């Protein structure tokens, strides 16, 4: 059994349907109407120990709700969650020791206490012995630069400082499973880099991580598995690299030549490539399939026509793929996979069976 298991997990929220204005409010008093919103819709998910899973989706897709269901905060409307075989909603105490949760938008530090005291309280809550605690703090300090924050009270921390301290707070008990819900929201680049470095260390130590983020740079280079949720349903669950190979094949070579180049001559030597004028007459952009043409071939093709002064290559990003999924332009056919096959391919053989059905 996988470490984290969700079976047909569903959460339906009910909110009052109040028409606008005073008349609407009065009407609601007389006849109460509610609108049901399915936030998480029959989600099947299983995460093996040691996996790093990216859980992405547009705003309101149900990401945070899933995390709250998986950590036992919310009660599922139907379906169930198991963490190491335990139901977090029923075995709160036991599960609490095994999971760590970071909500980027909420802090678990005590407002009135210095960070050091907050962490010490958590140490006592989780019953971490002093030696282990010291060792962990030392590590947090190395990557997150905690020492400078230790004497600062929760309310006085800047957002970046708060997030670093909150990360330590979420991990002080050495949880097996960590849910990171938008952990880099609002952070500047240098802090983001440190935090991402820290995530990689976590993963390398064997911690199971589920990362929710809008910033896809958090995901690349960290998660091997990608799960995309949209309107409460999992629309894709598979290998991140494979998605990139399948849907983000194109590289773009931007090349600066000494003399003008006729685009047709480049097209002639690079069949299939799309050649466009660049930012100046001496620059060209050549878009090519990285599996059909190597970067070396592309550069060589131009060199054969004119002397190359400078060039750079844009690598494909997962952003493009996910942006296209969000906009509905791309439908990843793994959807059917997620519905029928309840055991996702966790061995990472990397074939997401994804098919484009372009509009």
């Amino acid at each position: 059994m996988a470490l984290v298991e969700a079976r047909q997990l569903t959460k339906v929220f009910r909110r009052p349907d109040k028409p606008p204005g005073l008349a609407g409010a009065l009407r609601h008093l007389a006849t109460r109407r509610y609108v049901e919103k399915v936030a998480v819709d029959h989600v099947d998910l299983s995460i093996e120990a040691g996996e790093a899973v990216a859980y992405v989706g547009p705003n309101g897709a149900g990401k945070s709700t899933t995390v709250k269901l998986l950590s036992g905060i919310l009660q599922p409307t139907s379906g169930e969650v198991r963490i190491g075989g335990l139901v977090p909603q029923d075995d709160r105490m036991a599960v609490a020791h095994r999971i760590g949760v970071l909500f980027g938008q909420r802090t678990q530090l005590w407002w009135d206490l210095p960070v050091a005291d907050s962490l010490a309280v958590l140490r006592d809550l989780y019953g971490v012995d002093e030696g282990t605690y010291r060792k962990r703090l030392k590590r947090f300090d190395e990557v997150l630069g905690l020492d400078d924050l230790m004497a600062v009270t929760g309310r006085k921390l800047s957002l970046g400082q708060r997030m670093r301290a909150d990360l330590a707070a979420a991990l002080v008990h050495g949880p097996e499973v960590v849910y990171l819900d938008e952990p880099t929201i609002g952070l500047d680049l240098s802090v983001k880099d440190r935090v991402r470095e820290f995530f990689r260390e976590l993963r390398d130590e064997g911690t199971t991580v589920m990362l929710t983020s809008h910033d896809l740079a958090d995901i690349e280079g960290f998660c091997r598995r990608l799960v995309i949720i949209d309107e409460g349903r999992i629309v894709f669950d598979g290998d991140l690299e494979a998605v990139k190979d399948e849907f983000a094949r194109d590289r773009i070579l931007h090349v600066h030549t000494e003399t003008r180049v006729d685009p047709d001559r480049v097209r002639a030597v690079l069949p299939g490539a799309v050649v466009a004028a660049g930012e100046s007459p001496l620059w060209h952009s050549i878009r090519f399939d990285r599996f059909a043409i190597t970067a070396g071939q592309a550069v060589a093709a131009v060199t054969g026509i004119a002397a190359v002064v400078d060039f750079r290559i844009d690598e494909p990003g997962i952003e493009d793929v996910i942006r296209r999924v969000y906009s509905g332009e791309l439908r990843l056919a793994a959807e059917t996979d997620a519905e029928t096959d309840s055991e996702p391919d966790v061995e990472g053989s990397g074939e997401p069976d994804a098919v484009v059905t372009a509009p």
Partner: protein
Amino acid sequence: MRGYRALARISAKNALTYRLEFAFALFGVLFQFVALLAVWRVLLADSTTGTGFTWPQMRGYLLVAFASGAVVGLFADFRMSFRIRSGLVALDLIKPVRYQEARFAEVLGGVWIEVLVVLLVGGVTVLVAGAPTWPGGAELALFTASMVLLIPLKFLVVYLCGLASFWTQNYVGVQWARIAIVNLFSGALVPLAYLPGWLASVAAWSPFAGMTSTPGLILIGRATGAQAAFLVAVQLGWVVVLWFGAKLLWRTAVRQLTVNGG
């Protein structure tokens, strides 16, 4: 246990950090105490009924009412209610401590400063008005037990009202209702003996009686021997019933929690 102790330590410390807010909150209770003393002094001077309290008795009784109003943080419920309504309760739910026990530990941590204030006000009252007649032996033990039980009892009443925040956004309304009901049914404003018969018996059997009437009557010697022991037993019974009742309510409450946004 270590976790609960840590929580208690935080509120023990917070009591000092927020001493000014704390002082203001207690001022209200203190003012009520002084006002009631003045009112009852006038009322008792005019009264000739045999069943009424004597002035020294009423003084002692109102001091108990003051203690009851002062203990068990006036912050405890506001903080809990705020965390529930804002969704911060999500973070309490993933801690390896039981919710109710954790909140109780926090309340116990802050009790020391409240007890100090009660002792101070009691001391001043004695200096100004003379020492009360203390009950003897068994009654003194029962009075002490009743005062100790007052703490979990009041915590439970406050905690149960705090749980209402799972259903309503208007905690202030709930709190006002609670204070009004407790003031009436505990005998904190008017000793139960002065209420109409039927209301007095309802109040005497309610959990609120343990929040002033029971320790008050034992202190001033109007409940003695077996009757005093019985009142304390009822008080203890309510603590047990409310403790487990609150646990049941918590289970229902947490099942319909919604936390919106990140």
